[in-house]
């Protein structure tokens, strides 16, 4: 059981992007997650930039955007947005304590 990460090297530096509960909560509060179906093009960059927070919080937004611009949109694992959305879904799934707490996810 391990979390999905988006790994790459940029300017000889290794990056491993992933989400934490805190980051997903902030994305949710900012309304980013709810707008994924409505703004698939612009939302990808927001999700990508946010994915630095867990392991590379010291990377500036300027560098994050630079990397995003040079990032190939698709890989053999699927489109970038699909992967990022899957990583967010994984957070929600991992948080569900099996059988101990009643919960449901309401999607916008």
């Amino acid at each position, binding site marked *: *059981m*391990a*979390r999905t990460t988006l790994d790459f090297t940029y300017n000889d530096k290794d990056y491993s992007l992933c*989400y*934490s*509960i*805190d980051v*997903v*909560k902030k994305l*949710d*509060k*900012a*309304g*980013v*997650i*709810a*707008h994924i179906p*409505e*703004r698939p093009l*612009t*939302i990808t960059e*927001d999700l990508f930039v946010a994915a630095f927070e*867990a392991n590379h919080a010291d990377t500036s937004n300027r560098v994050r955007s630079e990397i995003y611009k040079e990032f190939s949109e698709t890989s053999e694992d699927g489109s970038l947005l699909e992967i990022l959305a899957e990583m967010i879904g*994984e*957070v*929600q799934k*991992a*948080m569900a*304590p*099996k059988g*101990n*707490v009643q*919960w449901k*996810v*309401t*999607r*916008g």
Partner: protein
Amino acid sequence: MEGDEGLTPLSEEQNDKIFSFAEWADDLCPYYMSIGVSCNDYWHGDYSQLGYYVEAHKLKQERENYTAWLQGAYVYDAIGAMSPILQAFAKKGTKPTPYHKEPYGAKHVDKVDDKPKQDIQALNLAAKFSAFTTRFNQKFEKEGIANGTDN
């Protein structure tokens, strides 16, 4: 802000839906803290570890439940042992039945340790018998010499 549709004010209904994950995450935080996840690990750590904490908590609960059950069983047995003298019309001189000498499932270590002790006792007996036969033979030989019947 113009051109940024994502930041436009939302209706109350939309607002409720959007904040569901945040509220859910807030609600679950105390639960995970109660089973040993630190606040920092919950919000900023590897969420995939949360499942291990849940499993560990289940095992701990099972162990505590078994201990409580075992304690109940001992209390039940203790009351059962005392029950003959707890009766209102018990005959004079009635004694309680003895309680368990050992806990449930105790291993009989003493019986296993007895074997070397028995071996030593057997060796002692053999040595004593050997000494006795030697003394007896020496005495017999002396008496034979004195009587002139030595071969």
